[in-house]
């Protein structure tokens, strides 16, 4: 099983409520995925600024990690702690050095995502508890995607929770299972990508990042995945400016979309929409298999 949700706001007036609406949707999908949950919230910074989400911060590592970060970015960065995750904001020139700093820090600290807009949080436990831990309800932004996991193929760990981020401002959530992920992972490793888990969904995320890094547009990369990925999937893919939805040709994994003048919402089941404003008059429909649905804010 597993539950997926996504919310893309067309009306800027709703942006302060993005986290609140997303947390309600996520909570409703608990029955589809009670083991772990995760979500990505997009809220773009000014040009030249970047942010990075890092997880696995403890009371013991918080001080040294922060000191090292501020030293590295010359005191101009900021740091926002949310439970065991921290969001770093800094000038883009420090990206490479900061990635190396996080990678080499040890003590269970791990890179989660970076980009101009993405913040990515995930944790083990009931979706409602995970959302509360990070204060999702209070977060604003332009769009968000989330996932509730019922683990079948690999362990219940934070690393195995969705979303997976394998490129700047990119993340993917997946309901389904892939059967050729080991072969594809080896091919992508030869192309220079690295993977943190044995999870099939991380390979799908990496595949799309690889295509995007070669200059393809998101819809082109997703269309190519229909030929290259073997298995069952409903994907929701987030980028800095929006999100996209794709279902495999058999389409046995559920998906439903709702669109109003104010937003586009995606979920595994209609139940997740029930508390959205204006849902009674929304256009509610099921995405067709093999067709890429894509919404974005003009860059």
């Amino acid at each position: 099983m597993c539950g997926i949700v996504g919310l893309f706001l067309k009306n800027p007036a709703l942006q302060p409520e993005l986290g609140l609406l997303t947390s309600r949707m996520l909570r409703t999908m608990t029955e589809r995925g009670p083991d772990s949950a995760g979500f990505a919230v997009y809220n773009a910074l000014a040009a030249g600024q970047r942010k990075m989400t890092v997880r696995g911060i403890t009371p013991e590592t918080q001080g040294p990690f922060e000191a090292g970060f501020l030293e590295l970015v010359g005191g101009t960065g900021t740091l926002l702690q949310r439970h065991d995750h921290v969001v770093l904001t800094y000038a883009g020139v420090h990206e490479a050095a900061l990635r190396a700093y996080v990678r080499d820090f040890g003590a269970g600290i791990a890179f989660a995502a970076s980009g101009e807009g993405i913040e990515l949080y995930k944790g083990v436990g009931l979706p409602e508890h995970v959302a509360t831990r990070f204060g999702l309800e209070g977060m604003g932004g332009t769009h968000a995607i989330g996932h509730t996991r019922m683990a079948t193929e690999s362990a219940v760990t934070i690393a195995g929770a969705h979303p997976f981020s394998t490129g700047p401002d990119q993340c993917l959530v997946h309901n389904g299972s892939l059967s050729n992920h080991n072969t594809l992972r080896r091919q992508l490793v030869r192309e220079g990508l690295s993977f943190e888990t044995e999870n099939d969904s991380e390979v799908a995320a990496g595949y799309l990042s690889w295509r995007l890094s070669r200059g393809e547009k998101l819809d082109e990369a997703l269309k190519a995945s229909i030929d290259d990925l073997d298995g069952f999937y409903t994907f929701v893919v987030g980028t800095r400016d929006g999100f996209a939805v794709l279902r495999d040709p058999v389409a046995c994994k559920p998906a439903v979309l709702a669109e109003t003048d104010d937003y586009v919402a995606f979920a595994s089941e209609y139940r997740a929409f029930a508390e959205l404003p204006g849902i009674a008059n929304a256009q509610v429909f099921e995405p067709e298999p093999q067709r890429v649905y894509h919404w974005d804010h003009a860059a």
Partner: protein
Amino acid sequence: MQIIDMNTTDLRALNTALQAGEAGSAWSVHNPAGRHALAVGLMEDMTVTIDGHAGYYAAGMNQKAQVTINGNAGQGVAENMMSGAVHVKGNASSSAGATAQGGLLVIEGDAGARCGISMKGVDIVVRGSVGHMSAFMGQSGNLVVCGDAGEALGDSLYETRIFVRGTVKGLGADCEEQPMTEQDRTILAGLLERAGVTDCTPADFRRYGSARTLYHFHVDNASAY
């Protein structure tokens, strides 16, 4: 009219109350909010209106009852219906009317993939279009599609009749277009009337059925077994 509000009623309490309802009674279910398994297993000739969107398996295993959904329905609406009628005012997700043995299922909008999968006698009328693999392994009954049909229509079909007004993206294994007989026209006209479809006539439709090459043992294929 008895009203049940799902904001204050447990799902089991709803179904228990409906299943104990008397013939001729009328019920309205408020705030369904996409919950699963609403109004299932009804066995009396009563009317039930679900006032909003329904989740999976709404009005499943229905006998005799007339169930209307004033919204969309999730997967498997009216699955294994025996008799009665289920009317979806919006769209239906995949596997609508799966394995249903009787009764009438009307979907005003579109139906998703596998509409009427393994249908065994139900009549299904879809005002819009149906997704891929519809009427897969259909054994009897009629599937009427006023819009278009997706890929692999009628794959591995037995004796379900399929009528499509629009385009068919592709036929499944052993499904073929067949001439519309007088009997077909009569059946189709009756179904359109029962479904309240007044804007199209039997002459607008094409008829599809089983070529019957898959489900009879063929001695030339003996070496394949």
